């Protein structure tokens, strides 16, 4: 069946609209701030036969680009071989097993079959980051877990909703294994209702254009997306482009983890070879395959933001399984750092490899860490325990167009940081400083953006501080002659004595008492191009604004 190009455009936009409405419905109805405000969620439409991505909401968290096609495929396969109960209309499967096409355990996926005339037409799936999934650390970001069991409750694909009704027994099991369980129902209902809205809207699209036409459009759109991605890849000269990115440590063994990447461009496709990267690690900085693949996809989407997300766009991106490395972790390797940190190092490796052949499009390395600082303790004045999270931005890389942005959010996120005033309302802390980190941007023709520095004091009671950050060992890479950005720094002041975590950017449960302070300096972005080429007027302006302090060596 051939389809005219205008109807094709309209159906393509219609499928995208279904996903965007699911995203919006999920966020608007979600209870948890992490979903409702930070948009740590994503929704999409997946093929009935192999779970491949048909369309995904544009407002989803970048780290989820393409991930749900792996979990959906796993569900389809497990149904086929009888390990999972066969679907019926209005069923919703729940799964968060990282090794079955996931990320970390906190990312909980729902998948719902959409029926047309008694057959499954496609799947709708969404992911929401739950604020807690059990395990040894509230919130789930462990710096030192050595097995996935310590990281929380692991759910294989099971039907949470059976013919539209939630299974109270499965829900009870989940609630018995997670913290603040009474608030979770608000997120579960939101996640399910987003799929419901998606099914209704998709049904309207199918009724209007006919199942057969939409089916033909989906196939054609897939071909066209591949064609579009190939047209972009054609900008890259044939060749092999290599890079390296370093994870500070796994949080348990204080050795750097290497990501070694060789990208081969030939015949308008790219092969991403991670062979020679470090072997699986003891601590939680392993990545599961789905996250590794998604990290490459999201990096490419940052480079070519106008190519829509679909399985077609991913076709020209070949990623052999990096067997035997920490980028292809298997049970029971701990993985809680993969979505927030390792993913960003993978993206950095992709940027570093492709900035040479695509100097107009690719930036120097951004700060590339979620800057996760957790504080758990007991507030004697309010007579309650608390867990506080401070996520922070950092500098972005300089690029062909301009200097890097200061205090941008993580490469894989789009969320806002909480205001200091809200943090102080909720937790017994006082921020002494929340400031631009002077001098942290890597020098360059276009310099890197600046990181953030903050210092906070525990006012009452006792608490434990934990850090899951990165780029403490080396700063974000400068490119084409630009300098690296400043590395991440963590200092804990206890009784006025400075303590630096052994792993620099990662440590679990550092005890604090009232009056102790935590000081964090986040990375600056890498510089782009030779600093000697920088317009002297702009350097003088940087000095005038106090971004850099003038010294005998020049501007920095």
């Amino acid at each position, binding site marked *: 069946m051939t389809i005219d190009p205008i109807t094709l455009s309209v159906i393509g936009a219609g499928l995208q609209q279904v996903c965007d409405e699911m995203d919006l419905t999920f966020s608007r109805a979600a209870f948890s701030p992490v979903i409702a405000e930070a948009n740590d969620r994503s929704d999409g439409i997946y093929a009935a036969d192999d779970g491949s991505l048909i369309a995904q909401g544009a407002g989803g968290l970048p780290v989820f680009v393409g991930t749900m096609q792996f979990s959906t495929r796993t569900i389809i396969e497990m149904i086929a071989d009888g390990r999972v109960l066969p679907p019926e209309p209005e069923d919703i499967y729940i799964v968060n097993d990282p090794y079955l096409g996931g990320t970390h355990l906190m990312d909980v996926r729902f998948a719902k079959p959409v029926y047309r005339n008694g057959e499954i037409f496609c799947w709708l799936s969404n992911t929401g980051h739950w604020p807690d999934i059990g395990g040894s650390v509230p919130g789930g970001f462990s710096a030192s877990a050595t097995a996935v069991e310590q990281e929380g409750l692991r759910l294989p694909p099971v039907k949470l909703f059976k013919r539209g009704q939630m299974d109270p027994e499965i829900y009870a099991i989940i609630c018995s294994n997670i913290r603040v369980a009474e608030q979770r*129902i608000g997120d579960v209902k939101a996640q399910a209702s987003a799929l419901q809205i998606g099914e209704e809207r998709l049904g309207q699209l199918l009724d209007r254009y006919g199942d057969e036409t939409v089916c033909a459009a989906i196939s054609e759109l897939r071909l066209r997306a591949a064609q579009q991605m190939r047209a972009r890849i054609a900008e890259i000269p044939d060749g092999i482009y290599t890079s390296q990115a370093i994870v500070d440590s796994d949080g348990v063994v204080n050795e750097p983890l290497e990501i070694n990447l060789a990208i081969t461009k030939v015949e308008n496709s790219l092969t991403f070879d991670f062979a020679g990267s470090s072997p699986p690690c003891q601590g939680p900085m392993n990545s599961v395959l789905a996250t590794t693949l998604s990290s490459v996809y999201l990096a490419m989407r940052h480079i070519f933001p106008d190519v829509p997300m679909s399985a077609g766009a991913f076709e020209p991106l070949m990623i052999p399984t990096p067997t035997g490395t920490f980028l292809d972790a298997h049970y029971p390797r701990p993985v809680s750092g993969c979505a927030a940190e390792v993913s960003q190092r993978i993206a950095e490796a992709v940027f570093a490899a492709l900035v040479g052949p695509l100097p107009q499009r690719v930036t120097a390395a951004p700060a590339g860490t979620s800057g996760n600082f957790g504080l758990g303790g007991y507030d004697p004045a309010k007579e309650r325990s608390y867990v506080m999270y401070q996520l922070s931005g950092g500098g972005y890389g300089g690029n062909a167009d301009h200097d890097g942005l200061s205090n941008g959010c993580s490469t894989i996120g789009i969320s806002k940081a909480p205001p200091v005033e809200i943090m102080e309302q909720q937790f017994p802390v006082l921020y002494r400083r929340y400031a631009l980190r002077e001098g942290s941007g890597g020098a360059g023709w276009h310099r890197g953006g600046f990181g953030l520095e903050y210092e906070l004091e525990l006012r009452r009671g006792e608490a434990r501080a934990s850090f899951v950050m990165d780029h403490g060992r080396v700063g974000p890479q400068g490119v084409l002659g630009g300098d690296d950005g400043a590395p991440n720094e963590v200092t804990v002041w206890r009784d006025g004595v400075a303590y630096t975590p052994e792993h620099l950017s990662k440590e679990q449960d550092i005890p604090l008492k009232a009056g102790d302070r935590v000081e964090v300096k986040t990375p600056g972005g890498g510089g782009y191009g030779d600093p000697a080429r920088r317009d002297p007027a702009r350097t003088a302006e940087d000095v005038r604004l106090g971004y850099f302090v003038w010294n005998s060596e020049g501007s920095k």
Partner: protein
Amino acid sequence: MNEMEISGFVAGVDVGGTFTDLVLVDPETRTMRLAKTPTTPKNQSFGVMQALSEAQADLATLALIVHGTTMTTNAVLERKLARTGLITTDGFRDVLELGRRTRPDPYGMKGVFRPIIPRDLRLEIPERMDADGEVVIPLNEQAMRKACAALIATGCESLVIHFLHSYANPAHELRAAEIAREIWPNDNITIGHALLAESREFERGVTAAVNASVQPLLTRYLDRLRRELEKGGYTNDLLIVNGNGGMVSSRFVAAEAAKTVMSGPASGVMAAAYTGRRAGEPNLITYDMGGTSTDVSLIRDATPAVSGEIEVEYAMPIHLPMVDVRTVGAGGGSIAKVNDAGLLEIGPESAGAVPGPICYGRGGTEPTISDANLILGRLNPKTLFSVESPVSMQTIRDVFAKKIGDPLGLDAEDAAAAVIRIANARMAGATRMVSVSLGIDPRDFALFAFGGAGPLHAVAVARELDIPRVLIPGRPGITNALGCVVADLRHDFVRTLNRPVAALDMAQVHGVLSAQTAEGRALIEKESVVTDRIDALYSADMQFVGQTHLLRVSLPGPDFERETLQSLFETAYFDRFRVHLPEVRANLVNLNTSVVGVRPEIDLSVLIDRTARKAILEEACIETRRVRFGDGWHETPVYRRDQLPENASFIGPAIVEQMDTTVVIEPGDRVTQDRDGNLIVEVWINA
């Protein structure tokens, strides 16, 4: 309500990006005069005076002038701001530059951000409150004096005092302001909590900084305009439309200048609400399509949706209650292209005003939505000859054939039809996203079309959204100016409490709302404007404990029981999100009062000159021409809007032309003209 009775003309003036529009109403004779003059960007008062003179307004007898302005909006977007200094809490001067750690676009690690006050003009002094409003570090008065002096020495003419947790305890900000007033050379001092007593230091700080940065500019502009008006003999008050859709005296507006950002769009929405209420359509989605973009807003029960979290551009929040107008993309100048995947796309690039669409004859070479409307006969081809250097229809068709037709295998006409179809689908999708985000079903609303291009596309967009009716007002192109004439006086108040409902001191709640009402009444009574009555509207911003996003809940009055609050919230939450959460406790964050001085009614039928009206429909038909709709070409009657007989009623296809816009009625749609001269289109929906 007010001592001074006013009779005589009322003028509404809206200064837009391209044109200054004026509506002059004589309530006695029920007549209206209109004027349209080019906007004079350097000094908008020239354009305003020109418009008044073109309308032959007698300034000496004019009762009232109400003014909507884009002056402050443009100043912010173009960063043409007064030199402004910030004095803030030690350790926090970079808050305005760091923002909330975001980026301009989800994908693409590029983008820039310019803080509204540069770093060298942001100074810190020792002082600190905590979240409970307790002093942690006392205000260092000597440092405050020094900082003020330093900013004066660098030539600052406006000052922001912004301290952490000032919403909880304003003592330091108030004392610092006292000190500043001793030495600051003028009245341009903005105190953070005074404008917005809400927590969130970035948003409150930017709001205050925007206010301070435009205050001297607005003061100078209004002084100049008032002088010009006085020279012409005008003796009454000049009123300004605020972003909340209410108006306020130009004598008081500058102190809260940030409230005038969004003045223009807000007045358009107020006119829509007013028109809709009189037409029996209190629930509207407004659809304002201009040259570069389309704005959408929501009106429920004749009341525009208001948001306290407007973002003027990336990372530029103004957290003051303003009419919630969302820009959703395409305008008449949006450019169509075929992308690498061989798919037709509209925008985001726009030909803007210069060079503009090809048909403007200003050198535009890219195919736009306006050009497609011309090819299809939806716009009158004769307009091609009314520009400076006319372009032939063939030139436009050639561009469509080459740039759109060839890659898609279509001829020029089919290419133009494809552009219109994709554009309508896209604008419908974007409008739908706004309605979903506001928790409403568009099918329960009518579409109110205005702006130069709104009535060209509104019926098709409504059909895409299953919206049953479209309302096209008498003068779609001057809706903003009309909004100035019908606007009410309005003052909004917000007070943060941030307590669980169970722990609220209800006496305090009632006290806050009563005090806000009294303050609003006092302000309105100071104004020299006739009002029929003063209304007060109450609401609370609430959430479940553990949430961070807020839901605005309407309150029945200043006095109510604790239980009422909880149940109103639960009902509102269910209406919006379809979720019942009886197991979780509610939290009250803000109490809000809006005090409205309602002005006398104006008869909108005066918008259309009655003298041109014909007795029967056929006489209003000036020609027929071939027009292409979704189902092909139709020989289509073209009507003159002002010639349509009273109670005109007809079925599409039809084109209705008027000075300020063209209305496209598609085949099968039924049109009737109501007593106010609105066209009501019943959208034919293929069931």
